[in-house]
């Protein structure tokens, strides 16, 4: 059984909402890439919006865009992945709790802070009583949601699944993560992310949804061949082995891949893995990157998937991503993302 990516929806730090495929690349300077958001009043009922914080609006709007494109009114299942959850509401509730010493607190921020709120709000809006799950596991959050969705299709429990990856930056979260030394000390342009050889990356955020189905149609973006995640490999050899085993399980070898998209994030420590692989198993490929467009965040693989799916659909690579790749054949794309050598993800896509 093949799994098709029928539709997508993406709100990101680039102009991606409304199915725009990176016709221009937006420059952000500083250590933080924030999303280009639509006017939500055009997309979501005003009466519902008042109860939605920013991340929920982002998630719901991109889910709606995806469903519209798919022609599916009510999906057979909804799975979401978010590592940080609804940070804004968490921060609001915590702040009030501290400032008012646990008195006079109101419920809205608390209710909205729960990690399954995005998926739940989508179900509520659609009156979708079907399977609904939410994953909150760091750099595997989106991948877990994707695997769950793919399994439902393979198990024939669903014919289509809406899968999303969402994470946001808030002032509070950014301050804390910055203190942890994750980001560049100096202000840089995101477009120079891979040329400044220094520690730290840039923060990003985004909400991307996909409608996966086991029934093909003329409008499908691509086939999602497979997914594999692995955790804290002990050596680079183990990393290579995991990647090669994944490809072998897909009955291909490295030479069959037309394009490799990596999660290089401009942090010289983090990117060592990609440097090593470029010299070993990926030596015959040029690796292209995506995090200069969306920043680094735990569910960024969703942005990479969106990018890869669009590359296959349009049979082209926008210059925002790269203008150095031969565009002869773009039928098999491997996405490889890893963060601090802890969470490694592999996704393989093919043309339909």
């Amino acid at each position, binding site marked *: 059984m093949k799994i098709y990516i029928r539709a997508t929806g993406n709100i990101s730090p680039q102009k991606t909402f409304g199915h725009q495929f990176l016709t221009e690349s937006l420059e952000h300077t500083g250590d933080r890439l924030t999303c280009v958001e639509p006017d939500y009043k055009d997309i979501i009922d005003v009466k519902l919006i008042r109860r939605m914080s920013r991340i929920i609006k982002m998630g719901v709007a991109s889910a709606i865009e995806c469903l519209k494109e798919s022609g599916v009114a009510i999906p057979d299942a909804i799975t979401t992945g978010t590592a940080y959850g609804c940070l804004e509401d968490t921060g609001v509730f915590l702040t009030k709790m501290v400032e008012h010493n646990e008195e006079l607190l109101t419920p809205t921020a608390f209710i909205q802070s729960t990690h399954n709120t995005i998926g739940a709000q989508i179900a509520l809006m659609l009156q979708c*009583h079907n399977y609904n799950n939410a994953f*909150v596991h760091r750099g595997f959050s989106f991948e877990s949601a994707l695997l769950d969705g793919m*399994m439902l299709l393979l198990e024939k429990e669903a014919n289509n699944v809406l899968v999303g990856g969402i994470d946001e930056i808030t002032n509070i979260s950014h301050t804390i993560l910055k*203190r*942890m030394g994750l980001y560049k000390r100096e202000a840089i342009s995101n477009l120079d992310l891979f040329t400044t050889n220094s520690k730290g990356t840039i923060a990003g955020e985004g909400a991307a949804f996909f409608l996966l189905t086991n029934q093909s149609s003329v409008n499908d973006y691509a086939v999602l061949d497979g997914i594999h995640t692995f955790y804290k490999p002990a050596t680079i050899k183990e990393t290579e082995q995991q990647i090669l085993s994944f490809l072998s399980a897909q009955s291909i070898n490295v030479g069959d891949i037309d394009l490799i998209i990596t999660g290089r994030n401009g942090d010289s420590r983090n990117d060592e893995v990609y440097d090593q692989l470029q010299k070993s198993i990926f030596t015959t490929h040029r690796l292209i990157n995506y995090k200069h467009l969306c920043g680094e965040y735990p569910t960024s693989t969703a942005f990479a998937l969106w990018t890869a799916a669009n590359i296959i659909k349009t049979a082209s690579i926008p210059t925002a991503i790269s203008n150095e790749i031969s565009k002869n054949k773009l039928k098999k794309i491997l996405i490889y993302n890893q963060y601090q050598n802890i969470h490694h993800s592999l996704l393989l896509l093919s043309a339909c």
Partner: protein
Amino acid sequence: MKSTVFVAGIGAISAIGNNVAECLTALENEAAGIGDIHHLQTVHRNKLPVAEVKLTNEELALKAGLSSTISRTALLSMVAAKEALDDAAIENISSLRTGFISANSVGGMDKSEDFFAEFLANNTKGKLRNVVNHECGAVTELVSDKLGIKNYITTISTACSSSANAIFLAARLIKQNMLDVVVAGGTDALTKFTLNGFNTLMILDQQLCKPFDENRKGLNLGEGAGYVVLVSEKVAASLKKDVYCELSGYANANDAYHQTASSPEGTGSFLAMTGALEKSGLQPSDIDYINLHGTGTQNNDIAEGTAIKRLFADHYPKMSSTKSFTGHTLGACGGLEAVFSALAIKHSIIYPNLRLETPMVDLPFVPERKLVKNVPVKNVMSNSFGFGGNCSSLIFSKL
């Protein structure tokens, strides 16, 4: 060919016991664990009853073999997960594809809320080590790292149905031949965040909760962790010890009615229970015991009760809410109650629903008020219904 998934090990820690044996003794002796707040530093001390685990973080850390400076949520998780793995006693586990699927609602919030107080006053203050494991997934990894599990690890957070969904996913991964053994369940420690959050919803009982009582006033929050070790048929066949039972049915549905309230007809509950029965191939009349979600809130109990009325019409099995013992342990309740379900099958017992004085007027059945022993308990349904309309039901069956 339909493959089967078995429960080979169980582990638990809650307000009624620091391990499975202690929890079982308490259940048999009608000894609830709900009372005054001792560990949590909150203005609600002496006002709101909760079901705390009766150990300090230092004591938990010793049991867990982890540092006492890490989140209580992780400590509870480690204690229960380790007990479950030891109980399963799988000799060649290092050669098997092993997963850890955990669940919790607010991750390491117990530490983050302490950090936050200092941070708010001055954002250069507050110990970073208190927030480095804030994320739900970070708590899971503290435990999976200690247990040495890395083939597949993930965390689910769907409010009160979280750990039921974790167990459900684990079964599917085994059936899809992606894993051979999975430790699955959930954990949650009491935090000011959740205590205050639930308080704003005005669904906390200021006395001990009375699930399924006509005059119930709300729930009592609890903490704890519960895990099962699920194994494939092949692994089960290699074990020296008997397995507890089979996970024969499971389903996940969404109420899609309101962010926190259940629909009066209990739509999500009905769909989850129906789906679990379909998956198991059983009829409603085959269920011997329902471990109710039974939080004690006005809303849940009538919604769940109405759904049961619809589904089981006239063939009402025995049922009870063990939350009358353990309080509502949020992300842990599905896991904890899965452990209790397995024990009910093994020991042929049905737990009492404590403090039920006046049966609910609108329901044609009454949960068991006394412990029932030596009855056939072949099929147990365990319900977990949460905020966001996330409803899940699991069915465990005797071999």
